[in-house]
């Protein structure tokens, strides 16, 4: 479904991605792990065209989207719940969801909003609250909900568990698996919470300073001693 071929991305003089090749197939959950500054968020943003890749190609179902404008990429079926959540702070929960439904022109709004509320009932209680006053976890739910409102074929999630209580983390990961299983939605997931993220992944990549240093099935990487040493230290298993 999505192919990145030798993608380079730079911010001025800094090269954040130094030739990354990643593939996401229809119906998969693909996880990307890596330490701070490895280029994970940059990778997701590059897929969305903001910033655009300096070199290499990005293909969506065979179509080259490397030079496509960000807002057109969303219309092609890729939506993102970005790093930092980026909720529209001075808009209500409902309006944030309406912003999510821009690509579908708001046609299936009622139906889609009900789906989001089934997934995250908390949002329904907060429907008229301003985005900026939601708790961190609620913002995360809204962020994922907003991305789902676009009716994507590929959903990009950037650290959905960041700064969230363990119980909510589990709820969010369950929701991810559920969307993937029931709606067949393809998901590309970036996580620091490597244990959980690898557990639910069909396949995974390890990114380090702008390069893919390892790839394989989720379980495989989970069992890999190097990965365990680098990304699963410090009792992260217990958090799960």
């Amino acid at each position, binding site marked *: 479904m999505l192919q990145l071929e030798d993608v380079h991305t730079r911010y001025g003089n800094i090269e954040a991605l130094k030739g990354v090749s990643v593939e996401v197939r229809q119906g998969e959950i693909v996880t990307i792990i890596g330490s701070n500054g490895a280029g994970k968020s940059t990778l997701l943003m590059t897929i969305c065209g903001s910033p655009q890749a300096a070199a290499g190609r990005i293909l969506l179902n065979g179509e080259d989207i490397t030079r496509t404008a960000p807002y057109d990429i969303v219309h092609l079926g890729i939506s993102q719940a970005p790093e930092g959540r980026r909720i529209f702070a001075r808009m209500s929960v409902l309006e944030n969801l309406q912003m999510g439904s821009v690509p579908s022109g708001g046609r299936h709004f009622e139906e889609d909003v009900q789906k989001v509320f089934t997934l995250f009932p908390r949002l329904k209680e907060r429907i008229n609250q301003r985005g900026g006053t939601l708790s961190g976890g609620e913002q995360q739910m809204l962020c994922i909900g907003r991305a789902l409102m*676009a009716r994507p074929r590929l959903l990009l999630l950037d650290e959905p568990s960041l700064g969230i209580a363990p119980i909510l983390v589990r709820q969010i990961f369950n929701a991810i698996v559920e969307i993937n299983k029931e709606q067949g939605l393809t998901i590309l997931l970036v996580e620091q919470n490597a244990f959980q993220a690898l557990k639910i992944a069909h396949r995974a990549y390890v990114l380090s300073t702008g390069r893919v240093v390892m790839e394989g099935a989720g379980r495989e990487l989970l069992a890999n001693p190097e990965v365990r040493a680098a990304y699963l230290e410090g009792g992260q298993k217990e958090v799960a």
Partner: protein
Amino acid sequence: MLYFLQQLINGLTLGAMYGLIAIGYSMVYGIIGMINFAHGDIYMIGAFVTVIAFTTLGIVGITWMPLALMVVLLCAMLFTAAYGWTVERIAYRPLRGSFRLAPLISAIGMSIFLQNYVQVAQGANVKPLAPIITGGIQLGSDGSFSVGISYVQIMVIVLTTVLMAAFSFLIAKTPLGRAQRACEQDLKMAGLCGVNVDRTISTTFVLGAALAAVAGLMASLYYGVVDFFIGFLAGVKAFTAAVLGGIGSIPGAMLGGLLLGLIESFWSGYFSIEYKDVAAFGILVVVLIFLPTGLLGKPEIEKV
């Protein structure tokens, strides 16, 4: 009391015009964080289009006032909006993403260009407009002083109120307004939501210019003269109004405009007309000392 009433009416009229221009400054600042120095000159173009359109209609023989006014209003808004759109396209968009001062300098250049362009095309002399709407209503008199509201003033206040209501609805309730607010809050995220940000920014310039055009129409009817330089002072005043109300805030721009108009009018009425600008800017300074983000500016309290 009568005198007070008269100053109030004059102040509201003036303030309505400042407010309409100020919205353009505020919206553009809100969405791309730049001060569009050419906005005052866009207003000046609106005033010129008004004069030219009225003159043309007079030649053609359309003199029934309500019809003429409607036609001129539409012409002024359309032409001026086209100027606003073009300015953004050629002078600001190519500079987006370059260093912060570049669009600002480009805006100053655009302002000078528009002034010179009108000066060359229309001449440097003051252009008079024969009174179109004359007369008024006398509200009261005590022998020596009589207070009245002219029909032009009524038109200014009514038209501004209607436009503001329509405009607030547009911003608060329509998908276009929602996209506009989204871009204002987080341009990048709005793009990730599928909003065509370039088009939304263009729309912002078009809307701001159209409102400034209405102010230009009002000013040319109210004062009866236009020249290529009127955009400068009106622009500075409206910008002040936008800052006073809290730059980035649309209701703030309107409120700031009204206050500025009232301050000027009362100051000239009760103290001295020479120092009215000093008073206006003095109050701006005082407000900014206590409320750095302006009256209705958004203090960033939200966690994002």
